[in-house]
């Protein structure tokens, strides 16, 4: 069976910067494919190319076996796009917005009305559908942003950081909706810089950094990379100026300092936890709390790049 998406050698350059640098991947039908990477990694640029918005400088994209740039209308009709920005009309009501976007996806008449109500139910906003979007909370706008991408029953749904700036309740609702749609057979491409989301949602993960793919595979496979590494989260009375204090402590593979907190990657934490705390205290900083994390995709990223996901590059 042809994969839903096949990308090879995809490249996009801006003046003096290669935003996406020759990446290749495949998304099998029915998968939830996670594109994980810090801000500026090139996720949105990749999505823009996949959705036919910007032309790549090199490389090929096929959607269900169709070359995107040769058959753009057919390929686009198969995709539902949920952009990173809330690309809707704030003065129009949710229903008016959805009707407009549905028409752009060639729906009309009764079918359009029916689908509008269905997606409103799906995102749980039918009761408030006649209010202008500018009265909505951030999370509600995000849900309509997603609903607009689902109107035409796409076979592939591409979501670009759909949970940014969303309250925990809306985030949960969004993740559950995506899971449910996937159970019904929808293929999903999900980009995020939240590793928890990607871990929860995605069967396949590709990690991007600075325009390149630095790792990809099933979540369990990636976690194998850091199986013997754990992250110790330290909270201290004052900031650790740098990681130098911890240099040479046995088992420490990397340190990430964030104000009063430090994330220390160590091998065999059970054995090496005590020396780490001792080293910090010896430097005259008192430790307020210690939490040891299970291996995570964040640790994978830290392991591969020496940087955190959230503080980007």
């Amino acid at each position, binding site marked *: 069976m042809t994969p839903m998406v096949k990308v090879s050698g995809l490249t996009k350059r801006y003046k003096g910067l290669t935003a996406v640098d020759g990446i290749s991947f495949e998304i099998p039908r029915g998968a939830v494919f996670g594109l994980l990477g810090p801000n500026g990694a090139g996720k949105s640029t990749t999505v*823009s190319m996949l*959705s*036919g*918005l*910007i*032309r790549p400088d090199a490389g090929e994209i096929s959607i269900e076996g169709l070359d995107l740039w040769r058959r*753009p*209308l*057919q390929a*686009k*009709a198969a*995709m539902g*796009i949920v*952009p990173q*920005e809330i*690309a*809707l*009309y704030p*003065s*129009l009501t949710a229903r*008016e917005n959805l009707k*407009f*976007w549905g*028409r*752009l*996806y*060639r*729906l*009309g008449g009764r079918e359009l009305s029916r689908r509008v109500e269905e997606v409103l139910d799906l995102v749980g906003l039918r009761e408030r559908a006649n209010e*202008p979007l500018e009265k909505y909370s951030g999370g509600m706008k995000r849900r309509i942003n997603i609903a*607009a991408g689902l109107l035409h029953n796409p076979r592939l749904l591409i979501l670009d950081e759909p949970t940014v700036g969303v309250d925990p309740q809306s985030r949960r609702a969004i993740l559950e909706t995506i899971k449910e749609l996937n159970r019904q057979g929808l293929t999903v491409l999900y980009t995020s810089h939240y590793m928890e989301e990607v871990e929860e949602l995605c069967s396949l993960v590709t990690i991007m950094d600075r325009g390149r793919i630095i790792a990809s595979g099933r979540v369990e496979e990636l976690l194998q990379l850091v199986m013997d590494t754990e992250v110790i989260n330290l909270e201290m009375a004052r900031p650790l100026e740098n990681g130098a204090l911890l240099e040479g402590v046995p088992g420490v593979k990397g340190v990430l300092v964030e104000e009063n907190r430090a994330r220390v990657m160590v091998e065999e934490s059970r054995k090496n936890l005590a020396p780490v705390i001792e080293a910090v205290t010896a430097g005259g900083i008192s430790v307020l709390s210690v939490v040891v994390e299970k291996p995570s995709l964040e640790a994978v990223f830290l392991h591969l790049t020496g940087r955190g996901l959230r503080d980007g590059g």
Partner: protein
Amino acid sequence: MRGLIPFYIALKDLLVLLKDKKALLTLLATPLVLILVLGSAFGSFWSEKAAPSPVLYCNDDQGQWGAFLFEEVFALPALKEKFTLEETRDLESARELVRSGKAAALIHIPAGFSAALLEGGEARISVWGDPGSSVRAQVVRAVVERYALELSSRRVVYQTLGELGLGGEEFYPRAERLLEALQLEPRIEDGLQRTAAGGMEPEAMDYYAAAMGVMYLLMTTTTMAGKFVQERQDRTLARMLQAPATPRQIILGKFMGVFLTGALQFAVIILASAVIFQVSWGSLPGVALLAAASVCGAAGIGMLVAALARTPSTADAAGLFVTLTMSALGGSMYPLFVMPPLMQAASKVTLNSWALQGFMKLMFAGGDLQSVALEAAVLAVAGLVLCLAASYCLRGEAG
């Protein structure tokens, strides 16, 4: 469904504008208030009631058609009431009187005019207007133009009769009978009556209805330009380009949106000013044609602003600048006919000037569809050219 995409985009743009209360107030209520205020304040430009300057004429023609203009046409009640005709033999000093504003206009019919009309030579009537080319001078010009038009239709008849070898003794009676049969006779009277009655006392209100209508038409289309750029910034334009629609359909939709909004706004101003202020816009087909052409021109300007501006605030600023400059130069603020000649010439690059020139013909000189054909053509062609330029600038939007 696909072919309708531009239409849906245009409708959506209209809906977005209708929900924007502030924009609606600016684009609909403000011009009506300004028509009222300016129409009342600047009424003095039109009040030539005290001793209207005479219309001078010099008739060097020995035949019947020269004299007919002054003895019959200007003797029609509607014209006689308004114009004092004074004969002159000295063209030079007469022209000086017109130039200095002491006479409203000078009409000159050269020697051999009637003969030329009969024999097919060059038959020409000259009209000089005062420097401001006041409304009165325009009416005189319109009357003469219409007279010339009627004569040229006679000339066709004379020529045809001549070519058929029907000259000689019987020529005039035959020709006149034929003209009568063709019912050309009553039309002279009728047409001239209408021309003259069209607006001998042009209302300041009428002028400013057209002036503000055109100015706010520009304001509308450039506001739509701002909204277009906003759409680019808000990424909704990108989202449209991600849908299964071609960039061409989307750009066409945006064009249609600008045109539709402009047309609707202008129609509201025309209707509202007609109903509220009793503005008489003139011949309906003429107004419809000229209004549509003006909307086309204004849409072109709006689209070009949208294509060139990078941010909504530059688009708004550029739109306002273009609107105000064109309006000031093109007669929307200060009437065209009181501008010095140089300014009048310069105003020809503005949308306002062409549109107002046409609307004045319709309002004050009894003009119809044909009399505004030139203005409409200039506006429509300019609009199309600007739209093409804009779509050329926007062609890279998808990549």
